[in-house]
């Protein structure tokens, strides 16, 4: 139990680096400044001057206004000159008050007039928006602004970028600006060939989508040297993209592996110590997931902390259920593994039906804490979802804790003794019955924790456990029985193999291939990857 608490604390320490995503400060409803009213009265030709004044007056508070205007969705109510935003299209049009976002269902098409916009104004608006964003305090926002501009560079923007580039302090933003400048320089036909070539050279490092599109355009350039250089740059970029795609796949494989590890490690322990297969293991996972659901029901206002309550709670619920099953059923079927399998299968049916009766057969939605949602963007072609990252870390932590428990604690010593030679351990005075119950509780408790992790990835339903049980067995069989290291290697191997086969064969065939592989593997090594050695091994 202490171990789990330590785990929670450790994980808690890791929390703060949640998604670095800064929301742009939405301006609250402004009392309409005279300039905004001016906007609704001005002729199109006089607009640029008004725009300039607005920029000076509001800065980034007016960003939503400029954006709406640029998109051509800016209207004003004829009667009181309130600025509104048109939302939706066709028959589903509604109007929202600019800045406050308050919906105004009472306004109809006839009562509003559009604030006009033409090409010249659009270009000016773009520059204004860019300027506002490019001078933002937050480097992330600045970088995002430059990225957004990549696809729509023009002379005005380049002018702004060049002046900002000199003063920019953040390295990432500077690099992004450099990319933008190079992209423009490369596609600008008024530049000399050598300038364009060096610009293309600079671009071959970038992974931005828009850069790739720009280069693709350049491959059809009239100047053959330029076209060839662009082609070359594209090839090198695509190679890097493929490399990152591989990393992405690897990450998904590791993520699946970590889930498999959590799901199967409890099974590996019980199977190793007692030689019995607990067919209700999947239901222990399910109980853990439902515990998470119930915990969130009980603390709806603290979803962010619910996980920290759910982990120990799930461990306890599933663990106690495990001890109960062991004491009531399994200990009476000692030395009869096949009968144990059947009896525990019966228990799994009962538990599933129980959950259906209590919670209804429908899936339940478990919400994800805010610090677990979002993703970690490494670069434009590679982003790792945070929840999977956390679960990966969590699985490894649980694994380490278990290894420590089995290697350093007296319970662990007893467990290892019983799993190696039950009769000898009994003769030495080890209370094997107590060890069995504890082992079963531990294995089931870990399955419960796996359920907490799974509830963050999939829907929680009565059949949740079933879908993982066969996979868990495969991991245990592949890794060798009662052998934590083997379980670790097997889980990640199977996870990665599955994800790498999937794109070429489809999910179903991948599952079948893995199965066939394991059947053949058992031919070669019937005792799994790392068999027990010595005379005690049967």
């Amino acid at each position, binding site marked *: 139990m202490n171990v789990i608490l330590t785990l929670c604390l450790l994980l808690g320490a890791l929390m703060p680096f949640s998604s670095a995503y800064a929301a742009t400060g939405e301006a609250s409803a402004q009392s309409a400044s005279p300039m905004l009213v001016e906007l609704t009265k001005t002729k199109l030709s006089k607009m640029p001057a008004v725009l300039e004044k607005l920029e000076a007056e509001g800065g980034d508070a007016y960003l939503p206004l400029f954006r709406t205007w640029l998109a051509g969705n800016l209207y004003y109510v004829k009667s009181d000159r309130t600025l509104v935003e048109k939302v939706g299209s066709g028959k589903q049009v509604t109007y929202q008050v600019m800045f406050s976002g308050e919906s105004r269902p009472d306004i109809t098409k006839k009562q509003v007039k559009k604030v006009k916009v033409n090409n010249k104004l659009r270009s000016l608006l773009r520059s204004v928006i860019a300027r506002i964003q490019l001078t933002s305090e937050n480097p992330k926002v600045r970088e995002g602004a430059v990225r957004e501009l990549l696809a729509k560079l023009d002379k005005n923007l380049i002018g702004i970028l060049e002046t900002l580039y000199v003063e920019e302090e953040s390295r990432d933003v500077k690099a992004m600006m450099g990319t933008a400048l190079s992209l423009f320089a490369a596609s600008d036909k008024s530049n000399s060939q050598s300038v364009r070539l060096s610009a293309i050279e600079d671009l071959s490092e970038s992974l931005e989508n828009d850069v790739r599109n720009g280069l693709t355009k350049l491959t059809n350039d009239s100047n053959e040297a330029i076209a060839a250089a662009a082609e070359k740059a594209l090839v090198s970029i695509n190679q890097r993209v493929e490399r990152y795609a591989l990393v992405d796949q690897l990450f998904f494989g590791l993520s699946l592996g970590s889930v498999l590890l959590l799901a199967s490690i409890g099974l590996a322990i019980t199977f190793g110590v007692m030689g019995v297969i607990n067919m209700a293991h999947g239901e222990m996972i399910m109980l853990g997931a439902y515990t998470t659901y119930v915990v969130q029901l009980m603390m709806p206002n603290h979803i962010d902390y619910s996980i920290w309550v759910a982990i120990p709670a799930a461990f306890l619920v599933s663990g106690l259920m495990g001890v109960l099953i062991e004491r009531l059923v399994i200990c009476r079927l000692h030395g009869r593994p096949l009968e144990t399998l059947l009896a525990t299968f*019966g228990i799994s049916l009962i538990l599933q039906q129980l959950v259906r009766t209590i919670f209804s057969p429908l899936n339940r939605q478990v919400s994800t804490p805010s610090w677990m949602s979002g993703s970690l963007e490494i670069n434009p072609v590679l982003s790792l979802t945070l929840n999977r990252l956390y679960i990966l870390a969590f699985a490894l932590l649980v694994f380490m804790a278990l290894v420590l428990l089995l290697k350093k604690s007296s319970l662990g010593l007893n467990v290892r003794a019983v799993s190696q030679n039950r009769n000898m351990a009994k003769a030495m005075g080890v209370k094997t019955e107590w060890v069995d119950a504890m082992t079963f509780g531990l294995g089931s408790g870990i399955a419960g924790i796996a359920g907490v992790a799974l509830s963050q990835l999939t829907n929680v339903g009565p059949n949740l456990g079933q879908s993982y049980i066969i996979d868990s067995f495969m991991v245990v069989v592949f890794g060798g029985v009662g052998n934590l290291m083997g379980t670790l290697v097997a889980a990640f191997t199977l996870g990665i193999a599955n994800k790498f086969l999937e794109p070429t064969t489809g999910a179903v065939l991948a599952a079948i291939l893995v199965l066939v592989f394991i059947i053949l593997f058992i031919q070669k090594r019937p005792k799994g990857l790392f068999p027990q050695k010595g005379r005690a091994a049967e």
Partner: protein
Amino acid sequence: MTKLLDWFSAGRTSGKYTLPFVVILLSITVLASAANLLLPQDSALYVSTYSITLLGKYLCYAMLALAVDIIWGYCGILSLGHGAFFALGGYAMGMYLMRQIGDRGVYSNPLLPDFMVFLDWKELPWFWLGMDQFWFAMLMAVIVPGLLAFVFGWLAFRSRVTGVYLSIMTQALTYALLLAFFRNEMGFGGNNGLTDFKEILGFDLQADATRVSLFLITAILLAGIFVLSQRILSSRLGKVTLAVRDAEARTRFIGYRTERYKVWLFVYSAVIAGIAGALYVPQVGIINPGEFSPINSIEIVIWVAVGGRGTLIGAIIGALLVNYAKTRFTAIMPDGWLFALGAMFVLVTLYLPKGLVGLYGQLTSKRGAKAKQEATS
């Protein structure tokens, strides 16, 4: 010594049940069929066609239970994937029935079944060729499950995969097939499976006479397979099989190639399951991938466990009883059935390890022992 012998023979049948069982089975079958065909509908003894079909279904299940009992009760191989062989046999029959529909489907394509037309396929896949011939389809219904069992058994038994490992492997096997058959590209009708059958060998499947004939054929085949299995298992081969169950290593040391015995018994069992599946489909009128689901396979095991394993007769009794209970139960309390089934698994393994037949044997032997004691005193 006699005590020892008694202990060893408990739960195992000699041939004493064979003749009475066959007589009872066939007479009930004939009586029920006659009651359906000859009596008027309003007669008190009339048996409805629905009941006939239900009985036929139970007999197919009994055959399937027999197959599981042969390897579990007599050889100690707990197969949790026998539903796969049953379903494969069923699919072979289903394919034949599908081809019999001809151009009477929704799309009226004389060659392709409806689901293929729907998927825009232009020609029959190679594995459907010849399925319009009844003899070929029936051959496939036994060869395909047999072949799969041979390959799987040969791989598994050769590398001495036993016990729990083997059970999980068989479960994984049926699970993999479930996934495969769910796919539309497999060419077996995807998750809808094969259904809407019209005729078998030119006879209308909905007609009473056809239903009764199928029921009769099922009963006769069940009796035949029962007698055959009884003979096989009481021969020398059966003795070796029992030896493998009770002490495989020892049997191997004596010089028997135990894995060969196991493989052939496994194949024999799979073929029986395939036949049961082929008989099941025309009576039920549908075969879909759900038959492959692991829970179906594990339910077969509980039929055998309830009746008493290692007795053959017990498997049949168990299958009939549990399925009758299921039919009644799901009608009264649909949600309660899984609770009952789960409880059955737990209670039978804990308190009735030899099943009902074993219980009966124990009771009679106790009575017999008492009578003996009184006679001697």
